């Protein structure tokens, strides 16, 4: 990626003084913008689309939800803690309800007035030795570009929108259709076809199930066996049960045993369905919440297969020797992190991912912060809220108590590699760079916020 250089003279930029810029009006952008305003920090938001919601703005350019998407985590930890979802929402709301929720949040806190919609951020460049940032934005309707000068930038452009597509031998000769889940919007495309679904993330499992309900036959290709968790266990959303075990402070080994016992009692042995035996311990991969997948495997509508070995003109061949005569392949192989308006080195890029303290702060600049670069083993927006609050408390401390803010800066360099795994070792895969154990991560945010609130 090339360095974005602004050749504009600084004088042309509109000076926004002490104000900060927030890029993106998805859940992380909204909660960051709210946290800044709530803490007395002037801020402007920029959003590509005409509405808030980010990924949950179904049908938008960078939305990756599909017609049937529902939350896979239940309300209590998924919602913003100071703006609970309405009681009329079910345990696992749909993407439409989530969009409605974000719209209500933005309206309630007066955020929509502070966001420039239909506006792309084309470049962010530090000036005056990093004392400020020049942010160039383009109005999508008029293509007019404007440059603003901000005291700092919060990047919240999301990490689940740029498709990651693997390459397999013979893929070019395949006569059927290939689709990334980024472009999967609903089950229509599956109807009457012979479908290979690649990947066992939550999307992969959702698509495999929808395919089982609509296609002629479905092959589901996964690298390894996984734990397919039910959405409900003993009448309660299962993530609430998981949090109950944490609230009771049970040790990791005991929680693992209890989870496996619950799975054995409710679903049973995955191998008996013809699924692979998990090759790892519970909590070592991002949780998959899908009750229906083993059901359709049991009905013979889904054939679980190994990794893809190669493509032929009319078939996909897997490493276990299975040959699937398919006419549609859906790659549910995840997303890559992209910051098209920033130079990667400013975010302490290491290999193919940024290395940031608390997944937010870069050693390179004290006024460039990323929100949303996390994938928790839980709901997300309680974390979004507290990330925003951490950023706001940090800015307030930088202005009013520099020594306190400096304590955090010292940690940014020393602890950039710290992970929040709650004692587990995640399986190496790009999706796990951003994996955090929610209780571990939140405890770290709490300690950071409390330190930033210290008088000196």
């Amino acid at each position, binding site marked *: 990626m090339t360095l974005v250089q602004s050749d504009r003279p600084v004088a042309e930029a509109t000076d926004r*003084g002490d104000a900060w810029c927030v890029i993106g009006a998805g859940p992380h952008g909204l909660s960051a913008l709210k946290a800044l305003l709530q803490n007395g920090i002037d801020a402007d938001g920029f959003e590509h689309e005409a509405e808030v919601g980010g990924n949950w703005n179904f049908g938008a350019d960078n939305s990756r939800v599909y017609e049937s998407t529902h939350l896979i985590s239940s309300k209590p930890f998924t919602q913003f803690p100071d703006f609970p979802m309405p009681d009329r929402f079910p345990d696992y709301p749909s993407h439409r309800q989530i969009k409605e929720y974000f719209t209500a949040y933005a309206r309630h806190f007066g955020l929509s007035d502070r966001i420039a919609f239909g506006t792309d951020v084309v470049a962010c460049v530090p000036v005056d030795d990093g004392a400020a940032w020049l942010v160039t934005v383009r109005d999508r309707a008029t293509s007019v570009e404007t440059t603003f000068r901000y005291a700092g930038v919060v990047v919240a452009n999301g990490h689940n929108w740029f498709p990651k597509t693997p390459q397999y031998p013979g893929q070019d000769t395949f006569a059927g259709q290939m689709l990334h889940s980024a472009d999967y919007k609903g089950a229509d495309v599956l109807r009457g076809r012979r479908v290979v679904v690649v990947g066992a993330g939550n999307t992969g499992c959702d698509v495999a199930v929808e395919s089982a309900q609509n296609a002629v036959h479905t092959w589901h290709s996964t690298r390894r066996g996984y734990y397919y968790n039910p959405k409900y266990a003993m009448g309660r959303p299962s993530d609430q049960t998981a949090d109950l075990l*944490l609230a009771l402070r049970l040790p990791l080994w005991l929680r693992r045993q209890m989870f496996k016992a619950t799975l054995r009692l409710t679903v049973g042995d995955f191998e008996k369905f013809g699924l692979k035996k998990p090759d790892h311990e519970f909590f070592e991969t991002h949780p998959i919440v899908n009750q229906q997948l083993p059901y359709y495997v049991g009905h013979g509508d889904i054939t679980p297969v190994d990794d893809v070995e190669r493509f032929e003109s009319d078939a996909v061949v897997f490493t276990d020797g299975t040959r699937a005569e398919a006419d549609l392949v859906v790659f549910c192989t995840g997303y890559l992190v992209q910051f098209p308006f920033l130079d990667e080195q400013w975010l302490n890029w290491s290999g193919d991912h940024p290395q940031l303290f608390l997944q937010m702060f870069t050693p390179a600049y004290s006024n460039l912060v990323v929100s949303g670069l996390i994938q928790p083993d839980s709901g997300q927006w309680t974390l979004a809220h507290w990330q925003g609050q951490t950023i706001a408390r940090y800015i307030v401390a930088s202005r009013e108590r520099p020594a306190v803010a400096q304590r955090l800066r010292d940690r940014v360099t020393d602890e950039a590699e710290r992970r929040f795994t709650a004692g587990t070792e995640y399986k190496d895969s790009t999706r796990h760079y951003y994996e955090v154990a929610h209780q571990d991560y939140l405890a770290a945010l709490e300690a950071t916020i409390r330190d930033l609130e210290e*008088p000196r």
Partner: protein
Amino acid sequence: MSLVTQGLPSRRRTRVMRPWDWSVPPRGLAYREILTVEPDEPTGRPPLLMVHGVAHGAWCFAEKWLPAAATRGFRSSAVSLRGHGGSGGAAQLGRATSRDYVHDILQAITEMPEPPILIGHSMGGLLSQLVAERYPLRGLVLLAPAPANGAFGTLMHTLRVRPADALAVMVGRTLPMRPDVLFTSLDPVEAELLASRTGRESAIAQYELLRRRRIGPVRCPVLVIGTHDDQIVRPVDVERTAQMYDVEPVWLDGMGHDVMLDADWQRALDTVLDWVDVNIPPGTPPLGPIERG
């Protein structure tokens, strides 16, 4: 990095971890009574949300305060907690806790067009503080608030002056709401009528008032109102509450515990609204004033 607070053992710290809220969330409620009176035309003033106390309901504000505050240009609402007034959940009142009540208030808040000023009376005053530590209120008004450091002293006081009432509370019955306990100077017929509208209280919620509550940091302006003629909440507890927020209590002496209903209710309301107009003037942005460079 040191997390030890220096020389300020009682300093209130932000609470992020709420594992019980995540694992055993309050039950939802099918119907929640929210009574609202709108002003004739928009005035740029922040909306008000009022929360009642033990055994009361939104009706206690609807009676006088809601229409009068709307006349002064405030969009005024009052919520009935579950099992109270016209809200659902009467059958489950027995297991209602303060956590459920805080949930009810937050649900009422999120239905409002913008962040409100929360006005809590008695137990509602304590609940409002629990809301204020987690939600960015415009302002917080506490009317004869139940003390956050536990109402044990109140119970002992009641045991001396009205032993039968205190014993009733101890065995889990609702604190008796007689006219002479709630009002000082109201017309007896009206006083009797209003007192008869009070209902039952959850025994758990009532016992919880005895417990000391740790309230996190509250960043909005706070007004604390009490009266030396209150038969339920002692002036000393009102003073302690005011101290928690570094403010002086405002006294409405001569009035009884139910300052929104007693004969002088207009003076009480004017005290609140005058304070609001000074501290949260019309046009204050939803999330408070912004520092501009």
